[in-house]
């Protein structure tokens, strides 16, 4: 691959596996472009059994990556889903072969706008084709072909990961034994597109962005990307959680500063969220991945009827939502369940009571773990997994 990798990509690729795909047969993207060759960076935990029946694919959310359960190569923090994946956990590597793939368009080793266009040898930047959730899933399916894994015992993920789960079940029903879409929707709502647009405009308004060519200019739109992250981060929390954590508490002072420093703890917290994000994430990648979510409309791709996406589905589904999630509220998750019922699919649905907002799916939510554990146990029994 013709790449000059970023530091973050180098560190990521040194700590995970990768495959170069699309050499002989490029990936036909939804936008009509043929992409190839392209690289997918992925992490695995556990061992594929002889029957190849214990593979579990975790699909990651917008700004997460393949480092589900090991120390992050850039931030040094523990994996983002160690509460779920690990020895003795619901997804135990002793039992399952767990795979997580950095999405197409990402910035942790999989091909995205940071890579070079093989046709021109120049960095893609904004010339990178716009990818969709379905394209991300196609790349994951191509990786499974490469790894000779015929089908998946379970595909699960939250938020954009949940969108990929739905796309997997709709596009490859025979390769998905069970599916767990968490805190997601079958289409991105107007409000969610609106929030993404604010984030993108913040990036593009940063003079250092340079029309997407910041690496050529040796600049970085860190301010713009940080503001994008700050906006998005608010949508991941809930009003109750913000109030509980911060209220109107002041930061490192006893009185209002009558200025524009971070007087309030909540401001300081958001600024920290923004500034730490730019160390591990690429601005163009953020544009591309948010766009993929905006374009996601599973019913639209199936004649406007969501149930048609799941017609005759053999997959066992378990949908999970959170009471205080206003980014992907229960009503959106329930619409998926209604469509699955209309397709007479096997579906369970649990709404978890929590005040932690959308991010609850990444946090210690015992009710979610109990649900997942019970659902997987039932599915494993039917699959004949011991």
């Amino acid at each position: 691959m013709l790449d000059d990798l970023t530091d973050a990509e180098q560190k990521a690729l040194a700590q995970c596996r990768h495959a170069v795909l699309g050499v002989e047969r490029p990936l036909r993207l939804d936008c009509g472009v043929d992409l190839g060759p392209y690289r997918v960076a992925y992490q695995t935990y556990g061992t594929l059994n002889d029957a190849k029946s214990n593979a579990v694919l975790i699909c990651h959310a917008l700004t997460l990556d393949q480092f589900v359960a090991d120390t992050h190569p850039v931030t040094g923090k523990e994996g983002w889903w160690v509460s779920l994946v690990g020895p003795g956990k619901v997804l135990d590597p002793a039992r399952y072969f767990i795979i997580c793939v950095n999405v197409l368009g990402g910035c942790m080793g999989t091909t995205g706008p940071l890579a070079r266009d093989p046709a021109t040898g120049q960095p893609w930047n904004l010339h990178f084709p716009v990818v969709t959730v379905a394209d991300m899933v196609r790349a994951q399916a191509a990786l499974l072909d490469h790894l000779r894994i015929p089908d998946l015992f379970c595909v699960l993920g939250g938020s954009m990961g949940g969108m990929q789960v739905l796309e997997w079940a709709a596009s490859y029903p025979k390769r998905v034994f069970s599916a767990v879409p968490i805190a997601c929707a079958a289409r991105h709502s107007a409000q969610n597109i609106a929030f993404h647009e604010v984030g993108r405009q913040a990036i593009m308004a940063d003079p250092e962005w340079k029309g997407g060519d910041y690496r050529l200019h040796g600049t970085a739109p860190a301010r713009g990307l940080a503001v994008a992250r700050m906006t998005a981060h608010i949508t991941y929390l809930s009003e109750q959680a913000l109030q509980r954590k911060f209220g109107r508490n002041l930061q490192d002072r006893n009185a209002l500063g009558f200025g524009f420093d971070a007087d309030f703890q909540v401001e300081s917290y958001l600024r920290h969220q923004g500034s730490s994000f730019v160390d591990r994430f690429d601005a163009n990648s953020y544009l591309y991945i948010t766009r993929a979510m905006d374009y996601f409309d599973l019913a639209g791709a199936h004649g406007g009827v969501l149930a048609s996406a799941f017609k005759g589905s053999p997959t066992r589904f378990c949908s999970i939502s959170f009471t205080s999630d206003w980014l992907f509220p229960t009503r959106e998750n329930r619409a998926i369940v209604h469509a699955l019922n209309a397709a007479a699919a096997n579906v369970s649905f649990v709404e978890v009571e929590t005040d932690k907002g959308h991010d609850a799916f990444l946090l210690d939510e015992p009710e979610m773990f109990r649900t997942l554990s019970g659902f997987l146990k039932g599915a494993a029994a039917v699959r004949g997994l011991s």
Partner: protein
Amino acid sequence: MSVSAPIRVDLQLIADMVEPGGRALDIGCGDGALLAYLVNFKQVDARGMELSQTGVNACVANGLSVIQGDADTDLGDYPDDAFDYVILGQTLQATREPRRVLRQMLRVGKRAIVSFPNFAHWQVRLRLVFGGRMPETPSLPFKWYDTPNIHLCSIDDFRALCADMGVRIERAIVLDRNSRPISLPPLLANLLGEQAVFMLRRD
């Protein structure tokens, strides 16, 4: 939930009506006792619908396929003939539109199994006629002001509704106060039966 745990007598009676290996939907499945029995002992592809989120979560945590939903509003999603049996245990009297719910059950399922308390049971009659108060019995243990039962009926009322809807009654079992089946002529059944279980199909 242990797979060998015995289930309530009235649930066992319903389970016995279900042929092995088919598909069933249990509406108001509670903690999933009947569902688990159907899955484990009858190899039924059994799904549940339950109003209380606590009940749903408990079922799913036990590996059962259950969604949160309401018999009055959520049966409309399912396609025709999605199930061999649609079961509604001790819930019909709590629905807003029992007739519509029955119609939906028989659209979604080839057969419907319905159980309900008999409001013409002699104890109910005595309490109302001589006590002058709304009846409270073991199968109707609520005060008038907090009862979920808004559409109570007698066994004969239910038979009349089935006739009116053109629904065929394949089986009707009348139960005593211990939920044991009793064999009685129809007139006495309506007086002495505390509950009834009906298996219906479209005519």
